[in-house]
């Protein structure tokens, strides 16, 4: 009976192989005139088996997006608009999507971790200091697989630790006895325990040193391929995404400003912000590198500039940029960017090369 109101029969994925669809998502912190619009109208589609990278400076709303999509937002944060639809595996095109934001409490609880799991940004504080590793790895099993015996749960926990390269003897260890890298790997193992369809990883390696970071990333990608799940990988390091992501979305001030296949975005970034972000990370580097490629500071979320929020820092800004808010426009098959300068250039090009064809409104323009 409750299936009826959470399922959305009319909702079929725009893409046949979509597993998670985010539409028009808006998240505010606080209410009224002083609300911070941390996520300000985001559309994203995660395809089955894909690694979708989300990049952007700190404060651009990446974590907020992840929390909102997984219903983990805490006050004062609140989702004010938008839809998140999950398409379970197997049943094919006919299977209706699940409206994640409308799931009632018990269905939400069952949905969590079995379908979508999260590796949080702060590994150091993500483990309960008074429970040992085994307990924290197995309690999700106990909650979702009531049929499993204690032995089976422990066997699974052991298996997972091996998967992430940690000595199984550490099962009885407490978090304070583990290094940062070990904790992060345990968080990753934990996310895999129920083999969910979707894993959201929020800067899983940011706090670690480069060597450990590399090693963990390699392992994550290997596991992803083996378990065949879809991943949303959040980071502020665009160059890292170049190596692991299939598609990359770049966020700025709560919006997606460019989205493209990884190689396209990394070789021919269209938005000046993507270009700047890319130039700040020549290769896989440590976490604390400053963004030398972009002048100025990220905007104050309480007082965003009018027009394109990036224009005060943009070397190519024109008068229109401080007036009109750019929307995503299609640059190619799977390439979109939100930049007035680029859009005008594309227009001009289109008109020049194909003047017979009038071009009223561009396809793929997202409503804003």
């Amino acid at each position, binding site marked *: 009976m409750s299936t009826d109101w959470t399922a959305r029969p009319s909702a079929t994925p725009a893409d046949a192989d979509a597993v998670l669809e985010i539409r028009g998502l808006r998240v505010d912190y606080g209410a009224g*005139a002083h609300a911070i619009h941390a996520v300000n109208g985001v559309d994203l589609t995660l395809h089955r088996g894909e690694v979708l990278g989300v990049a952007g400076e700190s404060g651009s709303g990446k974590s907020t997006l992840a929390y909102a999509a997984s219903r983990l937002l805490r006050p*004062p944060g*609140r989702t*004010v608009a938008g839809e998140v639809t999950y398409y379970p595996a197997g049943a094919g095109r006919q299977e209706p999507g699940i409206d994640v934001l409308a799931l009632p409490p018990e269905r939400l609880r069952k949905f969590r971790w079995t379908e979508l799991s999260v590796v949080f940004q702060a590994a150091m504080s993500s483990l309960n200091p008074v429970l040992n590793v085994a307990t924290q790895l197995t309690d999700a099993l106990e909650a979702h697989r009531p049929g499993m015996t204690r032995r089976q749960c422990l066997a699974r926990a052991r298996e997972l630790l091996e998967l992430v390269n940690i000595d199984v003897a550490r099962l009885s260890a407490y978090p304070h006895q583990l290094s940062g890298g070990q904790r992060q790997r345990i968080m990753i193992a934990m996310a895999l325990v129920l083999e969910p369809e979707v894993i959201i990883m929020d800067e899983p390696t940011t706090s670690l040193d480069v060597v450990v970071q590399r090693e963990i990333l390699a392992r994550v990608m290997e596991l992803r391929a083996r378990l065949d799940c879809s991943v949303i990988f959040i980071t502020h390091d665009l160059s890292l995404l170049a190596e692991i992501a299939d598609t990359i979305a770049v966020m700025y001030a709560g919006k997606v400003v460019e989205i493209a296949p990884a190689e396209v975005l990394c070789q021919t970034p269209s938005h000046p912000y993507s270009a700047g972000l890319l130039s700040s990370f020549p290769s896989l580097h440590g976490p604390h590198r400053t963004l030398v490629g972009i002048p100025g500071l990220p905007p104050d*979320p309480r007082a965003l500039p009018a027009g394109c929020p990036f224009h005060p820092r943009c070397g190519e800004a024109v008068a229109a940029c401080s007036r009109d808010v750019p929307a995503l426009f299609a640059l190619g098959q799977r390439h979109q960017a939100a930049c007035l300068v680029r859009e005008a250039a594309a227009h001009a090009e289109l008109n020049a090369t194909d003047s017979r064809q009038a071009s009223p409104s561009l396809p793929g323009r997202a409503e804003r």
Partner: protein
Amino acid sequence: MAAEVTVTSSDVGLVSQGGARRRPRAPWLRSPKVVAGLGVAGFFILMGVFGPLIVPADPSATSAAVLQPPSLEHLLGTTATGEDVLSQVLAGARLSLVVGFTAAVVGEAIAILVGITAGYLGGLADEVLSLVTNVFLVIPVLPLQILIVTYLGDGGWLLLALVIALTTWSHGARRLRAQTLSIRQRDYVQAARAAGEPTWRTVGFEILPNVSAIVITSFVFHVTSAIVVQTGLAFLGLGNVSDWSWGSVLYWSDNSNAFLLGAWWWFVPPGLCLAFLGSGLALINLGIDEVINPRLRTGLKAARLFGRARAVGNEH
């Protein structure tokens, strides 16, 4: 400038959390709890200042109307010797408050001295001062105070306040030490120390402003507990019980077995004054705590604003 004014006049919470460029100097003054608490405390302070001046009768004047329940003539009834209870409560407010505030001022001064010194200097000085603080924390204060007061005899209110201060400073010192320790680790303080800035400057300009909220909350708490201690000691008959304070009113009522006689009007009013003053002061602290520790801020307002079905992720 105009923008800043509107920001600061808005919800205190958002301002302090989001890190507005320039914080209002005392953001907690805008918390409704703090304002309400200050109102209650202000009422009793006025009672302390003007109480003895506006008494309807001489609080020590006996009369034939003994153990009268509240009436128009005696709003809070009379004692076993026909004294006016209202007059005693009004007159007693001053001594209770004066002892409470004096003890809190002196006690906090000791707490600041010990706590900040320990936290700032670290090392051996910290070890020793922390040890002293912790010893004072575990020794039960009441027997100690009683012993000292008995030895000293009746030395007047100031001596009593000093005894209370000397035996109750440790809670504040403990909190201040912890806070100072964490501030000392911050970059700008480290930098100031490395640059050879004189200690008094670093402490005065970097440490003190950052512990002000803790100093205030522990002072407020100190006032409450000092008044309760003074009342308890007077209730036991220590000090000069013919000086009117809320505690001495309770002492005399207990001495005459007022509760056996059912003369509730004799001992209820001073206790209620204490309880209301205590709640007012506690409200101030509750409000300040919520401002300095945003995690405690979970007001009803927030819950109502954030709707139910989809807004809050973790509805239970």
